[in-house]
């Protein structure tokens, strides 16, 4: 039997901006409107098996949080059916119920109980929890004196040890230092191998790619795609780019130039946002500008998923005689980049120094195994024939 089954699930929220619920509802009843109703999730069918790791991605407001809430059982669906088999540990609830006045030790017991552990169970797991959290000497100190990292570590350690059948994980893993994160991922794998299901909701697409067998892409509460993780991530980038395309206007902006679109395509000319490391991507940039000021060039920036600029260059682009006509520029970019999500930003630079809006698009590079860092220098290894030493 599947660990998690959703069939035709929808969740409708009513948003009452600021006013009292009673007054807002009364007002609606009188005006016969349902203006404040929004579907956060609609028509979701999903089955997750044991030991599977499912990624959930999508933009903010796509319904990811709502889905986690339904799976944790803290909210109920407006329509459809949610079925969960086994103990759920919502890792987004890390440190829930921690009381600042109580010591680390006391909070471990309270937190464990909230997560559904029995006292004997906590006794047994206690040493392990303490070791994993690396809190050590601070266990008998009220947690209000803890750093935020310590709080998260302690909370995470309890949750990881609560022997869940289904682990719900959101961005909490982004907190805490890198070493602790790595241990959390390791522990998650162990929990999975022991037969648990992991549902991982994240904006960190690299982590989703590394961890998840299948990925669900949500957009505005609907299921866009459920399937192979790489495919879902690629579709997600496409979705982001589609949304970013500016609306058509007859008039050019009063001043400066505007990038109308940036389209990425591969060697065969097909539009895509997923590339293989080392391949050349072609960016077709359409720009429209007005007559004031002279164009100095286009500034291209490629940055890694963490926001670090890997490459930036000002390309001299001949200015069009009449700025009203669109200018199309194609740029070939050899993608010597490691695996991960990258961003391409294009910004027109005018001699006047006026600030121009940049256009950003994202793409995903799948590079060869064992390549880390920010850039692929394509180093070549060769080996001298033996004989020099002896």
């Amino acid at each position: 039997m599947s660990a998690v089954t959703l069939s035709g699930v929808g969740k409708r929220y009513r948003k009452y901006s600021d006013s009292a619920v009673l007054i807002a509802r009364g007002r609606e009843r009188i005006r016969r409107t349902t203006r404040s109703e929004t579907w956060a999730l609609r028509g979701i069918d999903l089955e997750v098996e044991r030991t599977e790791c499912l990624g959930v991605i999508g933009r903010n407001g796509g319904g990811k949080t709502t889905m986690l809430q339904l799976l944790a059982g803290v909210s109920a669906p407006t329509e459809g059916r949610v079925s969960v088999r086994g103990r759920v540990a919502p890792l987004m609830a890390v440190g829930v119920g921690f009381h600042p006045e109580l010591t680390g030790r006391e909070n471990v017991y309270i937190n464990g109980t909230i997560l559904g552990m029995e006292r004997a169970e906590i006794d047994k797991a206690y040493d392990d929890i303490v070791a994993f959290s690396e809190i050590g000497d601070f266990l008998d100190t009220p947690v209000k004196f803890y750093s935020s990292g310590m709080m998260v570590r302690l909370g995470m350690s309890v949750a990881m040890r609560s022997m869940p059948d289904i682990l719900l994980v959101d961005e909490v893993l982004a907190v805490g230092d890198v070493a602790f994160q790595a241990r959390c991922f390791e522990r998650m794998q162990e929990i999975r191998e022991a037969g648990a299901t992991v549902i991982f909701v994240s904006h960190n697409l690299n982590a989703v790619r590394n961890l998840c067998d299948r990925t669900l892409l949500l957009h505005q509460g609907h299921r866009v795609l459920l399937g192979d993780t790489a495919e879902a991530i690629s579709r997600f980038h496409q979705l982001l780019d589609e949304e970013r395309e500016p609306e058509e206007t007859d008039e050019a902006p009063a001043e400066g130039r505007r990038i109308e679109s940036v389209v990425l395509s591969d060697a065969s000319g097909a539009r895509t946002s997923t590339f293989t490391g080392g391949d050349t991507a072609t960016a077709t940039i359409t720009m429209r500008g007005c007559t004031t000021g002279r164009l100095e060039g286009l500034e291209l920036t490629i940055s890694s998923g963490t926001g670090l600029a890997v490459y930036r260059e000002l390309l001299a682009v001949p200015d069009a005689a009449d700025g009203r006509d669109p200018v199309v520029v194609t740029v070939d970019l050899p993608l010597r980049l490691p695996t991960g999500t990258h961003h391409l930003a294009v910004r027109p630079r005018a001699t006047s120094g006026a600030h121009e809006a940049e256009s950003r698009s994202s793409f995903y590079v799948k590079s060869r195994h064992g390549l880390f860092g920010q850039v692929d220098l394509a180093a070549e290894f060769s080996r001298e024939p033996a004989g020099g030493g002896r």
Partner: protein
Amino acid sequence: MGAGNEGFDLEGEATPIPELLADLWSSRPLIGMLAKKEFFVKYRRASFGILWAACLPLFQAAVLALVFSRVVRVDTEAPYAVFVFPAYAAWSFFATTLPGASTSIVDNAALSNKIYFPRAVLPITSVVAALYGFAFTLVALLGVCVAFGELPGPRTLLLVPAVVLLVLLTSSLSLLISGMHVYFRDMRFFLQAALSVWLFVTPVLYPLDQATGALAVAVFVNPMTGVCGLFRAAITGAEPGFTGTLAVSVVWIAGTLVAALLVHRRYNRVFSDLL
């Protein structure tokens, strides 16, 4: 806790009553743990600690006893302090627990937005936490009675049903109001206003038979009349007309429990949508 350890099925917003009750029953360790935390955290940083739990109601009762016996002059058979204290102890538990328990679901939004347990756990926890302090108050109560020459007898055992009734009334009202408070945040202020009147329509400071006219009607339909009367009966003996008020209290408790159950059945899983 056990709630959801085997999993759950959600279809529609309401929680079926058997499921609700089963979840609540298996949440006993959680209630115990949270209540202990709530009680000890309250007194942890105070130098006199738990002593406050016993002494504060005692002090308040002493002030009222002084004012009402010397200034207003209420005549009672037993010494006025012994007459006032048992009923006041019950009243004080009720009036200090109810406001906190009634806002407990909203106040613990951080907890209940992330993890599921029946929301009824929260108001019940508040009542249980208050019981720890009430144990000290009861010891002080018996001490005062002995000091005034009212030695404990067989009727002192009436304190057991009295405490049960008090806890049931406070819990059922807390359950109902805490659920309503999520939707109508006016409830807490309404409750504050109500409690200030409520004390005076409860025969705590005056004997039951001194209420006349409209006051007598208000006193009779008041669920706290029977509960306070039972506490008084355990110490100084039952007052005339007491049995009727006890029946009214029981009816109130039953009615409130049913209403609370219906509110929690409907909204248990969706309180968090509005928190």
